[in-house]
């Protein structure tokens, strides 16, 4: 092995060591933060939160008590969210007697001002004739629920405990099954 060849091997070792060092650091970080990396898991009480709703009211975690609740995090720019909102709308009509409540929490992001968010969401709601109760979040509620990709949908029991969590588009049949399992025998 001549000098240049030896230098090349040494540089190769440094490259691999640097890559493994970075990987090791991320692995350690992942292990330390493991419990906080995923979304809020089933079995946990919903965190304390309060959102302004599009109709001018407020919705807080106490309002989840006593009913089965379906809470979804969405944005107008998210096609899967828009598709899922249509399913939730239908489910809301199915459970029109009020035993199940639905809350669609918008987290528009994108650095918009609150006024711009309201205008955009109101425009979407009007255009799609959406009747779901819509909350407006500046990101803090999504953060407390550890929401990653959207749509992010939770089924919450009447006791305020998260029972099911879905990331990405969830089928209405799945949600229906989960809701039915939480409702008292009819």
């Amino acid at each position, binding site marked *: *092995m001549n000098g*240049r*060849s030896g*230098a*090349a*091997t*040494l*540089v*190769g*070792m*440094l*490259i*691999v060591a*640097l*890559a*493994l*060092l*970075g*990987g090791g*650091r*991320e*692995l350690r*970080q*992942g*292990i330390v933060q*493991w419990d906080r*990396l*995923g*979304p*809020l*898991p*089933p079995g946990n009480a919903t965190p304390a939160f309060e959102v302004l709703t599009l109709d001018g009211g407020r919705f807080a975690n106490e309002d989840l008590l006593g009913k089965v609740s379906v809470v979804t995090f969405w944005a107008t720019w998210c096609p899967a969210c828009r598709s899922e909102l249509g399913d939730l709308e239908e489910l809301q009509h199915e459970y029109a007697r009020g035993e199940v409540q639905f809350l669609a929490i918008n987290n528009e992001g994108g650095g918009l001002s609150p006024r711009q968010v309201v205008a955009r969401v109101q425009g979407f709601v009007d255009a799609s004739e959406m009747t779901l109760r819509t909350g407006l979040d500046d990101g803090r509620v999504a953060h407390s629920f550890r929401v*990653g*990709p959207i749509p992010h949908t939770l089924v919450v029991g009447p006791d305020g405990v998260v029972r099911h*969590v*879905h*990331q*990405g*588009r*969830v089928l209405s049949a*799945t949600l229906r099954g989960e809701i039915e399992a939480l409702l008292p025998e009819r």
Partner: protein
Amino acid sequence: MNPILRALWRYGGMLVQPRATAHALQAEEGRHDGLILGTLYLLCVGTLDVIRGVAMARVTADLGGLLMLVSAVGRVLVAPIVVLVACETVLGRERSHGRGLMLVPLLVVAAVAHEATAHGLLVPAFVPEIVGGLLGVALAWWVRPAIATEEAAG
């Protein structure tokens, strides 16, 4: 030379003496370099994303969670895959067996940027991938004449 030392020589050689290293490659040598360097890249910059994907899949325990995990891995691997395709285009079909080594600059730039970020330096998003990818393509263009064609090597 021991195969591991030989692989380290290839990776380092791409930075120290690229043309000489490419010229000294034997037939069939380094066929899996793309896979090895791609895996090192994934380990270096994507371990936390993959762990996060696993954490999501564990909580949701459904197809959506699994898709999120696959998407986390896919997002990390986009850069090396794009660089490999670009380098293969530059090298041409007859020299494409050397494309895997062109991931070395991407791996080095990404690893250094990762270390810099870990030590509090602000590295703009996607800049390491763009810089590393461009260096990889430039390296492919530079060493192209030194890589034996498959016909000549075989």
